[in-house]
């Protein structure tokens, strides 16, 4: 029994605490203050959930409701006069789909390059016996706090000839130092050193160890960093705004800005009356269409978030 309680340190309120001898006389009981605190916390949490969720839910129902009901406030919790006209108009809009296609290309290629460059580098920098790693880490960390800025970047991209092309979305962001530090700390702390010793004795090279042992044990960090990079690419607005002139290369976020904020409603000529009617629905629908991919993916990776964020920030 005593062994079991050493490993499972009793949690208050759980049955385990009764197993400890000195707790037997006085079992854990909730006092009145505890009840009050529990209720206060419950109410606060419920309020937070409503405040976070309701605006999002509002967008969802507004995208399929009668625009008048949305604007005069009769639509509250459920859609009013359900219709998908807004979505039908959105699906006819080529600009949005060009942006969508571009963003998918930039995000997939960009994330691939990110992973291919960041992971081996993070692994190399996690090897303690490799002395140059401290200098390299310093040079990398320095760039987190000191950067050239907008104009030097612009001039550089112009000289490299990547201005107004898809490469400006992919190449400059190849290494994110924050993500690199997360991956490095993971390799340092979560993969037992004995594995490396064993591999070394078996004559395995660093490459072999990285590919065959370190990577297969790092699925958590692969998921977290892959998601971070993908979200960055998907939501990147400034690159398109500053470095891209032609519409054919514009990413989704710039197209969104044009539709949602600059007031260029969805362009499908000859239907202007219909579009004016559904302008509101279209705007809410566009928000859904643009955000849905990330909102569907992230809950599946949620269990890895704690690990990734914790490692990165504490060791960084």
């Amino acid at each position, binding site marked *: 029994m005593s062994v079991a309680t050493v490993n499972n340190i009793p949690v208050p309120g759980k049955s385990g605490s009764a197993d400890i001898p000195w707790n037997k006389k006085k079992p854990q009981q909730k006092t009145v203050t505890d009840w009050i605190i529990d209720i206060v916390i419950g109410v606060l949490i419920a309020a937070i959930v409503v405040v976070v969720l309701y605006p999002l839910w509002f967008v969802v129902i507004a995208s399929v409701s009668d625009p008048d009901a949305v604007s005069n406030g009769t639509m509250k919790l459920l859609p009013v006069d359900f219709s998908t006209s807004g979505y039908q108009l959105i699906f006819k809009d080529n600009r949005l789909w060009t942006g969508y296609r571009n963003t998918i290309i930039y995000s997939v290629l960009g994330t691939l390059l990110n992973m291919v460059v960041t992971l081996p580098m993070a692994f190399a920098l996690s*090897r303690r016996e490799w002395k140059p790693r401290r200098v390299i880490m310093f040079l990398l960390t320095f760039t987190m706090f000191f950067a050239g800025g907008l*104009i030097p970047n612009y001039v550089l991209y112009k000289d490299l000839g990547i201005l107004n092309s898809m490469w400006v979305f992919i190449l400059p962001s190849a290494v994110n130092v924050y993500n690199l530090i997360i991956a490095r700390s993971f390799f340092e702390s979560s993969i037992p050193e004995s594995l490396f010793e064993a591999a070394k004795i078996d004559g395995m090279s660093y490459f072999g160890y990285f590919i065959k042992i370190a990577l297969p044990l790092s699925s958590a960090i692969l998921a977290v960093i892959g998601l971070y990079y993908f979200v960055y690419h998907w939501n990147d607005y400034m690159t398109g705004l500053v470095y891209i002139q032609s519409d054919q290369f514009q990413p989704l976020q710039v197209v969104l800005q044009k539709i949602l904020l600059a007031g260029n409603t969805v362009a499908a000529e000859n239907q202007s009356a219909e579009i004016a009617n559904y302008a509101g629905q279209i705007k809410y629908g566009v928000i859904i269409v*643009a955000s849905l991919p990330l909102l569907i993916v992230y809950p599946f990776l949620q269990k890895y978030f704690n690990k990734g964020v914790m490692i990165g920030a504490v060791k960084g």
Partner: protein
Amino acid sequence: MSTQTVNSTMRMTSKESKPIEANGTKTSQVVDNFEARKHWSIGRKLSWHFRQYWHLWLMTIPGMAFVAIFAYVPMYGLQLAFKEFTPKKGLTGGKFVGLKYFEKFVTSPLFGEIMGNTVNIALWTLLTGFIAPIILALLLNQMQNQKIKSFVQTITYMPHFISIVVLVSMVTLFLTPGTGLLGRVFGANNLLASPDAFVHIYWISGVWQSCGWSAIIYLAALSSVDPGLYEAAKIDGANRLQLIRHVDIPTILPTCVILLIMNMGHVLNVGFDKTFLMQNTMNMPASEVISTYVYKVGMVSNQFSYSTAIGLFNTIINFIFLMLANGISRRVSDTSIF
């Protein structure tokens, strides 16, 4: 965890054991004779180093090349701030003009307004963006039911994955006077066009978007608390609030300090995207900040050197703040990032 490790080690050893039998002397390479290497010449040390570590160098070089080109070359280009920009010379710039552009910025009539706005927005965001996640994490940590807790976390993470463009669009739609979800409440007052409301819209939407996500790190820190500590405090007669005050808060304090230092390094980096998207001619007196001004001077009116100078000015102030925060924290609490 430990048994799993042992298993995988053993599996690997048994699978890879053949090569060792084939050339039994292989193990002699592994012995790292540190003492002997001390007396080697530099050339021999270098050649030993590269023979030993060329794999690691090869793995690092692509990333280093990207960082060198896309982070350090622009830093080299900062000299534009002290020179006249000519399209022919590119990053190195033309005639040296010293601090001309810094003086131009500091003495410009907009300087006070831009700096004031930047500091105002930055401090509001820093403060609320720092406190709100801590409160949320402490609240979530008090929840006993793990399933509900995890559900609440999933909900609060959600806004983090929404882009800034969508966030600003939602704010705009909601605050449209008369017809928006919140705009109706304020009647004819157009908050979107009000300079006084700008900073509050900015930080409230910021807290809505990032509070849940930023709380992760505190939750992770809180989950590392030894449950025995709670037990001990309870036996000493501590109530729930005292547990939070004397166990939870001291646990997350180092994390708080580190995050605060990191944020100090970006104190004047008011996000370009959000400010730029929320700007309109009406709220401009409160919404023009350094980053949007850098964009307008550089990309809209093409004054490259002037824009670079303003950007560098911003970076240097940020760097000073970072160093100050880091130094103070090292003295006071032994926590620092450098």
